[in-house]
Structure formats: C-alpha cells, structure tokens
C-alpha cells in the first residue's frame, strides 16, 4: 500500500455484514472479497448466492455469517432468483405494499457458477435489464469440491481434473474472458477488481450499485488452498496478478473503458507464476508463452481505454 492508502483504511465502513465465525480456510481472499463487497454495499442489500465455497462456509446450520437477507439457491440460478426478487419487490413498491426504498439486489457466484453453470441465466438477467449487481468471485477453479478446473482456470494450472503430468501441462485451454462477455451485453457497468486493492474494489462496488440497470463485477479471489501458496501470501499474489498484468484492473462504464490502475513498472509474469504450487511444473518456455499472451492482452486493453 502507498503512504496515502495506509491511513485511508481507517475511513472504511466499520460495520461487518459478513461476520466472523465463517469457516473459510485460513487466509482465504475470497472471504476477504465478500467482506469488502458487503462493506461497500451496506445493509440495504439482498443477496442470492450460488453454491460454492462462500455459500458453504457462511451457512452451516444453525448459523449464518450474513447480516443481510441472503438466500442460498442452486448452482445455476442466482441471477434468476435475484432478478425475481427485484421485479417482485419493485412491483410491491409500485402498488404501495412496500415503502419505496433503494435496495441493492445482488447475485453472487464463484467462477464455476458464473463461467460454466450459471452462464445462461446470467446472460438472460443481463439482457432483461434488471437493476441488479452480479458479483463473480473468481478463484480459478471449483474449489469447494476439491479443485476441479472450470472454464476460468488459466492455461497451465494443475487441478484435480487437469492434472499436470508427463503428458499434460495442466489446464489445456485459455481462461474464459468473463468481463468481456458481460460487456458484450451492453450493460451500464462492468469492472474487474481484487481485494489486494481494497479501495479500488469498494469504489467499483459502489458504482455498480449506483448505476441504473445491470452491473457485473469480476473479482480475482486468491485461494491459498487451491493455488497451493502459504496462507499469509494471499494478498501478495493478488497484487502480483495485477502488477504483472495477468489480471488488469479496469472498468467499462456505458461502453467506455478505463484502466483504473496502471502498474508501473509492469512486473514479469514469472514473479506471479513461480511461487504457486499449481504452476510448479511449468518450464521457462511455458512461462514465456504466458508472458507473450499477457502482454498482448494488456496492450489491447490499453488501446481500448485510450479510445473515447
């Protein structure tokens, strides 16, 4: 953190809407992401959550870590359920059965829930134009069931269903670009974020909640268990993902792209890849291939953000 932000931490919302006692692993940056998202949203929020680590760790009966109305739904239908809530409550407000109030309707899911299983329903909800926010917590695999690859797992990552070995480099496909898919729906607001950059993240959450219509947030959420890194390094690896441009922080407001943070200097991707157990088998040539792709993708983004 820079000098300014160090003290800015004290200006952050004190209330906790994702309470202690949840059962996420030690050092889970996905749990930190949820905590920060909820701080930014505040109490007038309703959440529908697909299954996944965050659903499981926050709601073992008879307890809940949620301080706002929250519903656990099936894997695929968080978007459908929250947009149903939005339409229903708006209708009741219109008819005078509920007092008019600004409520944040928020669907949340992991990368498996979003990139694979709930993709169709997310697309439908974005297309229908409901006033809601979708938050994807991307830890780059189906972590809750023991690290299976999803379509958001990056090339070369070893998971239990894309294991590295003599004949395999791990994940064979490139990471699906979910924010771009959301942008293709021409919705008001799309942004990427990472809890290692908490102020950038919370600002984007507030923007997403403020715009009229659908908003999509894609949050890179470091998972020490699945990435095979020490728990205390979860923040560090999020920072490295951003500073190597593997995961650029940007937003797209009414079609206008903007990089919200430009790493300077840009670090070599090697620094991000090397310490992670899931990439341990990669050769210098493999890492070079990742570097080339990363640079090319980042340059495209820079161009897009320079267009007015």
């Amino acid at each position, binding site marked *: 953190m820079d000098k300014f932000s*160090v003290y800015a931490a004290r200006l952050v919302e004190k209330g906790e809407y994702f309470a202690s006692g949840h*059962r*996420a692993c*030690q050092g889970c940056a996905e749990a930190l992401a949820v905590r920060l998202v909820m701080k930014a949203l505040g109490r007038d929020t309703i959440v529908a959550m697909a299954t996944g680590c965050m659903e499981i760790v926050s709601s073992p009966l008879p307890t*809940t*870590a949620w301080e706002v109305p929250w519903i656990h739904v099936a894997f695929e239908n968080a978007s459908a359920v929250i947009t149903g809530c939005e339409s229903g409550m708006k209708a009741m407000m219109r008819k005078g059965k509920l007092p008019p109030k600004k409520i944040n309707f928020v669907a949340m899911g992991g990368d498996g829930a979003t990139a694979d299983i709930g993709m169709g329903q997310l697309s439908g909800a974005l297309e229908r134009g409901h006033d809601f926010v979708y938050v994807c917590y991307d830890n780059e695999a189906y972590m809750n069931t023991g690290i299976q690859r999803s379509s958001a797992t990056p090339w070369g990552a070893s998971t239990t269903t894309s294991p590295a070995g003599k004949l395999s480099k791990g994940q064979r496909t490139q990471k699906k670009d979910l924010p771009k898919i959301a942008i293709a729906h021409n919705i008001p607001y799309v942004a990427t974020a990472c809890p290692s950059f908490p102020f950038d993240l919370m600002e984007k959450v507030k923007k997403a909640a403020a715009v009229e219509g659908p908003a999509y947030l894609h949050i890179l959420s470091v998972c020490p268990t699945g990435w095979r890194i020490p*728990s205390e390094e979860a*923040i560090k690896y999020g920072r490295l993902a951003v500073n190597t441009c593997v995961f650029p922080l940007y937003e797209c407001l009414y079609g206008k792209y903007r990089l919200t943070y430009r790493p300077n200097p840009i670090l070599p991707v090697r620094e991000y890849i090397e310490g992670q157990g899931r990439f341990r088998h990669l050769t210098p040539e493999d890492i070079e291939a990742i570097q080339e792709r990363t640079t090319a993708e980042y340059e495209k983004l820079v161009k897009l953000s320079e267009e007015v």
Partner: protein
Amino acid sequence: MARPMEEIRWQDLEIGATVSEPGCSREYKTGSWRSLRPVVDGEQCIRCGVCWLYCPDAAIDRSEDGHFQADLDYCKGCGICARECPVGCITMEIEES
C-alpha cells in the same frame, strides 16, 4: 442464539431451514483452528488499520489504548496481518495451547 449451538437439533430448525438471527456464525469460535498467533507490538503500531482491512475473518479490533489487536476468538492465524503491516510490528508466534 437462544440455546448453545451444539444443543440445537434438526427438529428445532425453522421451516425452509431459515436462520433468523443475522451474523450468528459468531457463536462458532474459529480461533481454535489457529496454530500461530499474531502478536502486535503496541509501541510500534502506527494505528493505520491496514491489518484490520485485510483480515479475511474480521478478527481485528481496536484495543483500549487505540492500537490494533487480533481477536483470538476468531483469528485463524493465517498471517496476512503480519505480512501486510506497513511497519512490520506484528509477529506470528507459535500457539502453546
């Protein structure tokens, strides 16, 4: 919760498995998972709150004299606070009990 968590049986659950007490996960003390304990040097602490902001378990509070301190009921000992503290005044010590 009205009764201790361990005493609640499935027959006691509400219809639809609704949980009507917000944030009652606090009944479940994750501090017992910890093998390392963060110890803050209150003299050196600049009271910036960075440790508090980054804790995934919301397990850091202000102490009476204003510096920041881990809440040992919930701290899982991940070490993030020690790693991110800008002045390096948190050390992770082996938990004895």
